[in-house]
């Protein structure tokens, strides 16, 4: 009874995991889902309803996450969407969206992925679901989008394109193994580097055409966006198969440009960016979650801490279109405090803001800095932020922040001279003001004097 709906996967920061080429269209908050006869499942109370091109996703709000988990309704399973009746009565009610879904014989929501017969055969039974919108969402807008998505039948395109690319790669390998100058369909098979170049040329020509078409007007762009992503994906696959079949012919430069191309295509990015249009009032909340998911890879690469500005650039690049403003970025980051996400925004005393893993510890960094400044060379002449950057493997600006933090904790102290800004291990606490000439036989002060005296500085 509880598993009437198929379960929707969510990321650790609470964003839905989308299917291939699935795009989010609209969001509504505080939505209940109930059925008219109420015995198929427990009503889902006050969650976030997300419309994508393929599914309706219901995510529980964080407070009630213990009682129910995220549910998915494939648009495929919807057999009818009722239009809203404007009546006097409806003015006093929360807005409702009603639609009919197919139910499989075993009493579960019809799931096309499970392949339990054709929709006409097994969908003998259907029930009416009602989404009650208790929040202040744009209900009519949502209904309109629901109609659009339902009619667009994106799941069917996906199936055909999926099988198409599969067969494409299949022929690619088969032609590579079979000999002959002609391919099965009679055209001249392209061989060697020239072939790849020609293929690429052709691809570019078609890309160019797509681009020109796409920029005709914005509506065309919107509809072309998916094609573009698919095109990029296809090109990547072609490049991959090309590089595997071309071992001897391709020179280094060729490979280099190919790798670059692949990287470039891989960074095409987020397929379904959260936009103000789709998310409305929930914009910052959802953006925040998406951002939390996104920054994890760059964070890992940067060693647990990344400059907010760098993250902003990476994020916007991944979004491609639908760029966000710095202000939105900041808001999204500051919302992390409220969610259970593994990353956090941190502001240094100097005002520099960074994103860091929650598990990132200053103590570990301090220990490394301490190791760095107690080397004989550093005892003599200190360290600069760029020295620290090289040793810690981070950006100089970040290294400087770390050093300044270490300074404020009393670990280091600064030396400003014509040579520049350098940091030394803090000896001040070690010196006894009552006897300034006393040197203890142990401690960092003694080590320092030894290091300095060996350099002939006496």
């Amino acid at each position, binding site marked *: 009874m509880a598993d009437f709906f198929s379960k929707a996967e969510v990321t650790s920061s609470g964003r839905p995991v989308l299917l291939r080429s699935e795009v989010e269209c609209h969001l509504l908050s505080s939505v209940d889902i109930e059925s008219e006869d109420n015995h198929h499942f427990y009503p889902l109370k006050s969650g976030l309803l997300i419309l994508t091109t393929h599914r309706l996703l219901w995510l529980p709000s964080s407070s009630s996450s213990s009682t129910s988990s995220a549910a998915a309704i494939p648009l495929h399973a919807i057999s009818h969407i009722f239009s809203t009746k404007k009546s006097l009565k409806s003015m006093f009610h929360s807005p409702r969206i009603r639609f009919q879904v197919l139910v499989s014989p075993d009493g579960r929501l019809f799931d096309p992925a499970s392949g339990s017969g054709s929709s006409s055969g097994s969908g003998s039974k259907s029930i009416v679901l009602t989404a009650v919108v208790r929040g202040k969402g744009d209900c009519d807008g949502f209904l309109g989008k629901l109609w659009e998505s339902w009619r667009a039948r994106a799941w069917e395109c996906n199936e055909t394109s999926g099988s198409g690319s599969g067969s494409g790669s299949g022929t690619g390998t088969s032609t590579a193994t079979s000999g002959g100058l002609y391919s099965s369909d009679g055209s001249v098979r392209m061989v060697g580097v020239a072939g790849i170049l020609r293929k690429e040329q052709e691809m570019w020509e078609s890309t160019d055409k797509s681009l020109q078409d796409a920029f005709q007007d914005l509506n065309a762009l919107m509809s072309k966006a998916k094609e573009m992503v698919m095109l990029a994906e296809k090109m990547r696959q072609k490049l991959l198969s090309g590089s595997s079949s071309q071992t001897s012919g391709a020179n280094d430069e060729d490979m280099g440009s190919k790798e670059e191309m692949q990287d470039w295509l891989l960074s095409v990015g987020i397929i379904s960016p959260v936009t103000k249009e789709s998310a409305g009032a929930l914009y910052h909340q959802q953006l925040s979650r998406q951002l939390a998911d996104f920054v994890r890879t760059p964070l890992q690469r940067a060693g647990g801490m990344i400059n907010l500005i760098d993250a902003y650039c990476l994020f916007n690049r991944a979004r491609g279109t639908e760029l966000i403003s710095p202000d939105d970025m900041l808001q999204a980051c500051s919302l992390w405090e409220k969610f259970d996400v593994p990353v956090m925004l941190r502001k240094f005393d100097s005002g520099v803001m960074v994103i860091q893993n929650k598990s990132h510890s200053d103590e570990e960094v301090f220990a490394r800095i301490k190791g760095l400044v107690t080397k004989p060379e550093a005892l003599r002449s*200190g360290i600069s932020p760029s020295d620290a950057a090289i040793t810690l493997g981070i950006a100089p600006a970040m290294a400087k922040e770390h050093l300044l933090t270490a*300074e*404020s904790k*009393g670990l280091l*102290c*600064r*030396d*400003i*001279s*014509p040579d520049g800004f*350098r940091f*030394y291990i*803090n*000896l*001040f*606490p070690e*010196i006894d*003001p009552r006897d*300034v*000439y006393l*040197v203890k036989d142990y401690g960092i*002060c003694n080590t*320092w*004097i030894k290091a*300095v005296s060996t350099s002939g*500085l*006496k």
Partner: protein
Amino acid sequence: MQKLGDFKLPHFFNYPPYFTLQPVRETREKQVQLWKELILDYCRTQKIFVIGLEEEFPLFSNSVIERTLSHEAREAFLSALISEGRAEWLDKGHRRCLILWHRIQDWADIILNFVKDNGFEDSVMTVEEIRSGIESRGTELHGIDRTILMRALKLLEQKGKLAIFKGTSADDEGVKFSV
């Protein structure tokens, strides 16, 4: 160990951050404390009474490590001495600073001891005699800064230990002791 004339410098005089005013409070407090002690120590042994902020002062630069105190740092360290009553600005522009390694009260006691030791209890002396006379030779009073001496004498006058009388010029101010 590094020396400045016959003054023995502590090890940390070669520690470059010692010459940069530290921004972190705790570190800075310690730094200021160390500087105060060093300035007083140095002035006492070298009999220096006035430090000019814009003049060369041997303690404020270290040629070995090529570091010099900034004007801001100098002023900060001297201000710290002033807040403890161990120094005073001589002008409003904070360019010259009087260093009191003995407080005025202590100087006054030294004068009294000097008077008693030499049996001047009821004598008359000029101010110049106290500073550079044969009697004061070898005591701490020899070569004392005139400003400090006058302040100490005025303090004693208030206590009724002596009377200051003026001569025709500033040079021949006299003191009548009545200890």
